[in-house]
């Protein structure tokens, strides 16, 4: 479990988020929703200790800021929203996911290679393993980086807007992969502007507004929080009655 207590974090000495208490469970997907500037990305960066924070963030009982870099990487993986199409082939990128597991030599063992191959199969990038990242599409790039963090085999995976920029079928594919990872006991925390999509695939929703948590709710109980949802993203949300609809939820004026 990731447990947050009295957290504040921000930029240039100005706190962007102030969270007295919040927790994220293993084996479930939590979506953090909120308007631009509400502090979603800041929260993820604080959990991965990219941003220094005041207060406490513990993952499996260990204070994140007190962990060594490699130990932290084995516990928490993070994928930012903007990914760089570096001049590397796909397999090399995914292999970097094993950096925290390969000791001082950073040589891949047969176990590491198997994990890299499995991550590429899971994200359906195995056929492009020899292609170069600067020659593939944005959606493919996102899947390759996802394969990298899956190969990292961390207990918690934080993803900043994982579905942004993907076509609908790849959005569904991305969320299905995350559901499968959650099924294996990994705690997934994502930020999303696509509320119907994230609610459809999440176990819990965390609503942020101006750096503060408004509510944490299960998606199926979200209709009861209509006022809070309107305060959070400016629109209400309803459970979609139409069985043929792609998502279980829809936004309302």
């Amino acid at each position: 479990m990731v447990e947050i207590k009295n957290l504040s974090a921000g930029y240039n000495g100005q706190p962007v988020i102030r969270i007295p208490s919040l927790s994220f469970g293993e084996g479930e997907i939590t979506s953090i929703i909120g308007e631009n500037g509400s502090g979603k990305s800041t929260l993820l960066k604080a959990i991965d200790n990219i941003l220094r924070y005041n207060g406490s963030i513990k993952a499996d009982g260990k204070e994140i800021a007190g962990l060594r870099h490699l130990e932290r990487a084995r516990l928490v993986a993070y994928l930012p929203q903007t990914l760089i199409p570096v001049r590397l082939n796909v397999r090399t990128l995914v292999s970097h996911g094993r950096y925290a597991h390969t000791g001082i030599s950073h040589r891949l063992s047969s176990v590491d290679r198997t994990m890299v191959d499995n991550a590429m199969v899971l994200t359906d990038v195995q056929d492009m393993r020899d292609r170069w990242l600067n020659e593939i599409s944005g959606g493919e790039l996102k899947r390759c980086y996802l394969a990298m963090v899956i190969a990292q085999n961390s207990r918690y995976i934080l993803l900043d807007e994982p579905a942004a920029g993907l076509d609908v079928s790849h959005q569904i594919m991305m969320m299905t992969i995350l559901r499968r990872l959650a099924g294996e006991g990994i705690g997934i925390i994502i930020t999303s502007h696509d509320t119907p999509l994230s609610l459809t695939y999440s176990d819990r929703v965390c609503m942020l507004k101006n750096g503060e948590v408004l509510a944490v709710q299960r998606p199926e109980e979200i209709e009861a929080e209509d006022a809070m949802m309107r305060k959070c993203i400016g629109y209400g949300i309803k459970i979609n009655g139409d069985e043929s609809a792609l998502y279980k939820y829809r936004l309302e004026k």
Partner: protein
Amino acid sequence: MSLALAGIAALLSLAAASLLYGNSSVDTSTLFSAFFDKQNADQTISMILYDIRLPRVLAAVVCGAGLSISGLLLQEALGNNLASPSVMGVTNGAGLFVLISAILFGNSVIAKSFMAFIGALLTITVVFAISRYAGSAKSTLVLSGVAASALMSAGINLIVVMKPDTVYDKMAFQLGSLSNVHKDILAVSAVLIFVSIIITVILSKGIELFPLGDDVAHELGMPVRRYRVIALFLSVLFAAASVSVCGLISFVGLIVPNLIRQISRSSFADKLLLSAVWGINLILAGDLLAKNIMYPYELPVGMLISLLGAPFFIIMIAKKRMRG
């Protein structure tokens, strides 16, 4: 792999050519026999081979490898292909302090090497201070480097004018040359560069993560700030060790790593070794040309490489602009 083999073949050929051809016309077979039988060789031939040509080749090896790797490390650590020891002012900073060392400590080899390092380190610190003050954009860093480089260059000119006896051949020093290489400084620099290469290879898997961006490198478990400081420290060491041997040769650290990056997509360790080999080749080829293009007069090798490097730099800026 073929690039490495071609590089090594070119290196051996250029080194052999540099040993065989020079300003003194000596028969090839005489040189060969002197090379393999030093004891019975003619004293003049032995001097030409062991005191003039061999140190020159070894200086090319040290400076070519040092300047190229310095450029590669700067580019990787700063995520900026325009960064190089000459563009960032590191070579001029090292050069200025070599001259200051000559004023303060005379011909002390250790002092020269140490002061070159201090000068290079001080320059890159000034560059970062200016860049931080002016905003941390990539272009700001390069502009700060250009400004610091100009400042250090002014200092060099001032010393050369005010204290002309501090440097044996001021033109050779300012333009970069392999003639009159000091053997003791060469030995110190060779050891420094060899040890630094080993350290860089050990750290190569971490350095390889820089291009992914700081956030991704951090999340993978790399201590980004610590690695960046070490990489910059090593790049400064490579540049300083080179400058104390061959003066202010510019653009090797810009041209070679960028070309290697364009051609090869292998690991950082491979790029490092390829940069070293092709950096040596560039200096050896430039030196051969410098010795023969206006025979019997010799041009400083740094001047020829600058003639190649300046247009290369302009092309890179144009390409960056076209990419937006």
